[in-house]
């Protein structure tokens, strides 16, 4: 037994040594400051939104500037909060720098998950940085998490179906509401379960635009205490419009969430007979959807690229994109998508992590973000988005976009799916005010992290 233990221990030590040898071997050949040669920091990126080109740039630039290695790990949006909850407090497993959703940012900032980087704020862009995102990463007057990129939500339509129904592109929210209901009633292509405007019953992320557009708020804060305000007058106006949309313009299932609704705009699933005539229902079942602006990559005619991967090519004769119009001549305030980025408070290499932030907020990287359709955090570089119709829709809708409440408990609200539940009950409600009141009572303690 003893001998076995001893040999096990020997084996463990030996393998530890070998593994250690491996890791230091990879650092050979770094030319810059050799002090950092054996150091590695980890960056977590959420989802595949950051293209490979940008990741490669970060890695090579980081090594060139510091001599250390940058390890980029991609996390799924779905379990990001879980992973951050378990990893950030643990110095041995924490990512040094992490991206996280802008609405999740305030919760983690408030519990002290991130390093105070107020001293770098001016250097990284200061007031040029997107302020609503900066606020979501602040406690008091200290900065913890900063904006990484922003997106926004726009309206995507089947211009051909709109034309067939004889409805013009709307210039006000009321015209939009009436227009999609008219298209729904007309159903010019006779598609079963057709939606003039496909809005899932649990899709609050798009639905809250109607609350915001009527000057409603989800919650207000006074002296540090948050109050859910679903039952306030303006919010109720928005909810009533939503109820009308659910009833008369959308045939989306009551349990559908904000997920890939753009597939309902594509018609590539037509079943054709020998002559090429359409014989059976197509997958096209919506004239209008709302989605983050980058969804345009998934809308259009099906094709394949050089590597044989399926691609979609936007077709101007069929598709159109515009910012959801408001009633005051400006675009309606929609839910701003995007991410924040912060340094873990338990990071063992905070100086290297700060170097990484300097690279991310450099003109070169910010420009690269814009060129790839992601809104750069620094407003000086927004021009890099270009001026095609998608960039225009992004810039227009982002100009008036809003964030969810920066309350300490907002990530909890999202995690417990209360908003989904509330929105699913809007269509069938006979007393919206009572329903809103009921959910106000649930949300207020959650918002305050109680």
């Amino acid at each position, binding site marked *: 037994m003893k001998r076995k233990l001893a040999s096990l221990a020997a084996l463990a030590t030996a393998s530890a040594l070998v593994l250690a040898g491996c890791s230091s071997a990879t650092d050979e050949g770094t030319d810059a400051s050799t002090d950092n040669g054996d150091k590695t920091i980890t960056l977590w990126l959420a989802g595949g939104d950051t293209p490979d080109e940008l990741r490669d740039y970060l890695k090579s630039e980081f090594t060139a500037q510091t001599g250390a290695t940058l390890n980029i790990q991609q996390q799924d949006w779905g379990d990001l*909060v*879980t992973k951050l*909850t*378990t990893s*950030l*407090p643990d110095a041995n497993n924490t990512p040094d720098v992490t991206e996280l959703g802008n609405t999740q940012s305030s*919760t*983690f900032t408030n*519990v*002290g*998950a991130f390093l105070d980087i107020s001293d770098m704020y001016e250097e990284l862009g200061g007031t040029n940085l997107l302020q609503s995102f900066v606020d979501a990463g602040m406690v008091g007057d200290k900065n913890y998490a900063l904006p990484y990129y922003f997106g926004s939500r726009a309206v995507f339509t089947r211009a051909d179906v709109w034309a067939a129904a004889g409805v013009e592109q709307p210039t006000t929210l009321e015209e939009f509401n009436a227009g999609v209901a008219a298209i729904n009633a007309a159903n010019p292509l006779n598609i*079963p*379960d057709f939606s003039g405007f496909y809005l899932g*019953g*649990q899709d609050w992320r798009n639905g809250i635009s109607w609350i915001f557009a009527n000057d409603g708020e989800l919650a207000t804060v006074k002296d540090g205490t948050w109050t859910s305000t679903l039952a306030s007058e303006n919010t109720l106006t928005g909810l009533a419009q939503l109820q009308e949309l659910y009833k008369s313009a959308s045939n989306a*299932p*009551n*349990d*559908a969430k904000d997920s890939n609704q753009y597939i309902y705009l594509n018609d590539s699933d037509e079943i054709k007979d020998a002559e090429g005539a359409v014989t059976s229902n197509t*997958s096209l*079942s919506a004239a209008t959807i709302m989605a983050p602006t980058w969804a345009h990559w998934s809308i259009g005619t099906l094709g394949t690229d050089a590597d044989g991967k399926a691609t979609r090519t936007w077709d101007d004769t069929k598709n159109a994109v515009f910012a959801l119009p408001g009633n005051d001549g400006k675009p309606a305030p929609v839910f701003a998508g995007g991410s924040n980025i912060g340094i873990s408070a338990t990071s063992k290499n905070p100086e290297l992590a700060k170097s990484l932030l300097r690279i991310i907020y450099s003109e070169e990287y910010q420009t690269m973000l814009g060129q790839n359709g992601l809104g750069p955090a620094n407003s000086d570089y927004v021009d890099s988005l270009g001026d095609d119709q998608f960039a225009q829709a992004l810039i227009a809708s982002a100009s008036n976009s809003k964030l969810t409440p920066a309350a300490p408990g907002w*990530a*909890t609200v999202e*995690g*417990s*799916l209360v908003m*989904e*539940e509330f929105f*699913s009950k809007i269509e069938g409600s006979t007393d919206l005010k009572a329903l809103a009141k009921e959910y106000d009572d649930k949300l207020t303690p*959650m918002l305050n*992290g109680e």
Partner: protein
Amino acid sequence: MTTQNLVLGQADPPRPARPRKRGRSTPYLLVIPACAILILALGYPLVWQFITSMQRFGLSQQFGQPPEFVWFDNYVTLFTDPYMWTVVARSLAFCLVTAAVTMAIGTLMALLMNAVHTSVRITLQISLLLAWAMPVVAAMTVWNWLIDWRRGVLNSVLTGMGLDFQNHNWLANPLSFFFVAMVIVVWMSVPFVAFSIYAGLTQVSTEVLEAAQLDGATLAQRLRYIIVPIIRPVLAIILLLQVIWDLRVFTQIRLLQDVGSIASETNLLGTYIYQLGVGSSDFAMASAVSIFVLVLTVALSWFYVRSMLKEDES
């Protein structure tokens, strides 16, 4: 008794002569490592969970703030919350119905395997094994495609049969959600039940059955008065396992919820704990519910465990 022992895989007497008592402590010493591992692996998390369930433990505590000890506050909140009881009732109903259906289909499968020709039986066994060996997530992906509301095979077949199931959403209504969930859970657990009962059936001696047949017992009578009593210990333990497994069912429900349904209307205990702990970062409340589920499981299985112990003694 002999047959029962055979079924349970125990060796029959004659018993070997007891070895002389040497050091009385040796057996205890030998048991210590196993106990130590059990205590470490099972006891530690259990104790931690129990302590956490009596604290306020949220995201701030996870990030290092000291938790406040509140004794049984969480339990009081829990037991006065009507939603909790809805979930408990829902879980119990789901678990009992699912376990019963699984047992019924599993038993029929086992009888079928016992009755058919070897080649048919082996085909049957292989298909059952494949269903059993399928990773849950992979199987769930396929199930989700089958029941997809727009392009699913199920709706297409039903519509083809002249019924109006075009774009029918199975997951939106909680009742049909649980029906779908039950079908999937039953599909996944029938193989285990069928194999175990089949193993039990092979232990029923053909002489007894032939004798009964000569005495004029019908098939139903033979099943009821001979086969079932003989394999009862197997049935009892399998039913117990099914009840426990179906009470803590999680993956299938969770993956169905990802596709559709309103979470609050379709939560079972497993997903409720997940939503409390992982979703809302309320680790204390999640621990309290877990402890409650543990107690519930013990209570549910107590009756069975006791009757099995009794049979062992007799």
